[in-house]
């Protein structure tokens, strides 16, 4: 088989993995080729608008498992291919030299056994690191159920190691991926957490779950994420809207992948990690799913309108973060600026505050920015939703 065709097959099977970040490592170029940029660098953007920073491929799409949702499951009749370690090195180095990519994302179907697959991954990556002196970013997938010794070896070669929990709950996993055991996945996470340092998985670990293939609510999903962040110190949880590839009675039949839902989950994920929100602030068992029309923060603010409007010049950092239209950057700017001058409404724009949203929720020097009579839930909600909607319509026109 030609290299071109192999690449096509093994990139096609890898594309459903959402993770593409290349940040968090500052590996230096020790007289070879490449280094890691701690901010991460996007090199291109695919037709679906997702960033391409890593050469995302599988070592092989042969697999001994038959997970229902997966393109590469054993029972699917598709073309199979396997890369040799040298082939992967050639492609990676040639792409890297031309600045096409920031590094390699290597995952694999499970061939023979978890240990055998891990050994192949290790062989490939150590060739790249040691023979070719490649110091660019490498993200590898750990294979659940492998020997911890292999986790040790692989982790000391790569920048990021991850294991996908695949589905938000154990029940989902039992239903759709009966050969994968959730305890094997958590074992990997536990191991990486306990060993992580500058030389072992310096960019930390991440995971991904498929959204919409099983019946979990957003509340269950967010609770799972939150506990993963707490328990295993994950850098990121990725959410991947389910794309119906296989037909199966156990799978839902969707016309479109649930992209808006995926977006809401990412927004909420950010609120958990950087905005000091808790899952229970956003959702509860009576209200278990996000509002499709409003982002989670605006939705929260409208349900807690009694806490608003907040005075920009005096309220605390955490209160600033609760205001729709104010992000981490602009909140920090407000805090440092107001030590030296009183902030007026025209200063806010220059600080990156999205006034279109924020204006309903703030006071600036005691003054409400728009008409005080309109400080009502229905009015604000209507205006924000319509504002977003007309924005979307405008975009469509182009």
């Amino acid at each position: 088989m030609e290299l071109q065709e192999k690449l096509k097959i093994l990139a096609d099977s890898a594309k459903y993995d959402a993770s593409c970040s290349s940040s968090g490592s500052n590996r230096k170029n020790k007289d070879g080729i490449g280094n890691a940029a701690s901010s991460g660098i996007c090199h291109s953007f695919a037709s679906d608008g997702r960033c391409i920073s890593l050469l995302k491929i599988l070592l092989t799409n042969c697999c001994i498992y038959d997970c229902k949702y997966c393109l590469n499951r054993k029972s699917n009749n598709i073309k199979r291919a396997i890369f040799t370690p040298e082939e992967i090195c050639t492609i990676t180095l040639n792409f890297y030299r031309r600045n096409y990519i920031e590094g390699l994302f290597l995952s694999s179907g499970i061939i023979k056994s978890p240990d055998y697959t891990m050994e192949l991954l290790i062989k490939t990556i150590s060739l790249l690191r040691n023979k070719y002196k490649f110091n660019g970013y490498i993200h590898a997938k750990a294979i659940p159920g492998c020997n911890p010794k292999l986790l040790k070896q692989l982790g000391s070669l790569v920048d990021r190691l991850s294991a996908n929990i695949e589905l938000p709950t154990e029940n989902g996993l039992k239903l759709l991926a009966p050969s994968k055991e959730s305890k094997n996945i958590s074992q990997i996470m536990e191991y990486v957490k306990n060993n992580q340092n500058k030389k072992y998985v310096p960019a930390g670990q991440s995971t991904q779950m498929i959204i919409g293939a099983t019946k979990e609510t957003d509340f269950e999903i967010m609770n799972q994420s939150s506990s993963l962040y707490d328990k295993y110190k994950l850098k990121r949880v990725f959410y991947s809207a389910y794309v119906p590839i296989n037909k199966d009675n156990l799978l839902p039949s969707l016309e479109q992948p649930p992209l808006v839902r995926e977006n809401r989950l990412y927004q909420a994920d950010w609120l958990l990690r950087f905005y000091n929100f808790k899952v229970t602030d956003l959702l509860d068992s009576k209200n278990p799913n996000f509002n499709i029309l409003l982002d989670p923060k605006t939705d929260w603010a409208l349900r807690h309108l009694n806490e608003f409007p907040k005075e920009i010049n005096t309220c605390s950092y955490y209160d600033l973060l609760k205001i729709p239209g104010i992000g981490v950057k602009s909140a920090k700017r407000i805090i440092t600026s107001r030590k030296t001058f009183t902030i007026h409404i025209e200063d806010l724009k220059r600080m990156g505050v999205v006034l279109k949203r924020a204006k309903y929720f703030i006071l600036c020097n005691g003054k409400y920015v728009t008409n005080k009579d309109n400080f009502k839930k229905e009015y604000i909600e209507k205006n924000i939703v319509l504002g977003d909607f007309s924005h979307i319509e405008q975009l469509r026109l182009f």
Partner: protein
Amino acid sequence: MKNVYIYENDFISLLNLIFYLLKNKLKPENIKNEFYTPSLFENNITLTITKNEKNIEWIIKNIGKYSMKSIYYVFLSEEENKELIIYYFLLNALKYRQKIMYHRNLKCVSEVLRISEYVIHESHKMKGFLRFKELEKNILYAEMEPTNDILYLISCHFNSRLKNELWIIKDNRRKIISIHDKKQFIIVKEKDFEISTQKESINEKNIENLWKTFYKTIGIKERKNDRCRMNFMPKKYWKYITEVKKEL
């Protein structure tokens, strides 16, 4: 008549000139580089100023390294009045010293922050979007047309990343080239340097095709989103991006 002070087109000359203006309490109506053609109501003034490193050191000591970097980024921009913005920034920095950056309500400060962020942002994007081709003799060759003068900034990046490679990066907008010889890089004018070979290596088309295959394959059809792609990867860069230039 409006007085326009003229500097040689480099950052050190500009700083020396501004230092001189501040010291002698001369208020410029404009500051422009040597290529500037004055209008009917303008009067170009070229002062003979001895460049002194001590002036620069004095400025750094007073405004801090962070502010110094920021005004350097402003200098690299194409902002129409960048010199005056830097002048007013330094004028105010003499009063507020290292705290100058907290004064976002001053126009010169918010402008310096806005423009420097823009330059850093473009430089960061170009670190990803730049595409090298392999020429004969293993030379890597790239062209670009960035809005701001970021050749030096991205050369520093590739200086460590591709330190064992021979590479050339050309800014087609400014007609300048950065050349790396495995030890260091220098930036010269296009007319002062002739590239001995422009012929692609035997392997080049092959690798380009592999990359285009990867690019086409990795996008998920069910999620196609051109608007989102364009937001992240503006069309103005496509001309030089191997995998999308055909789509233009």
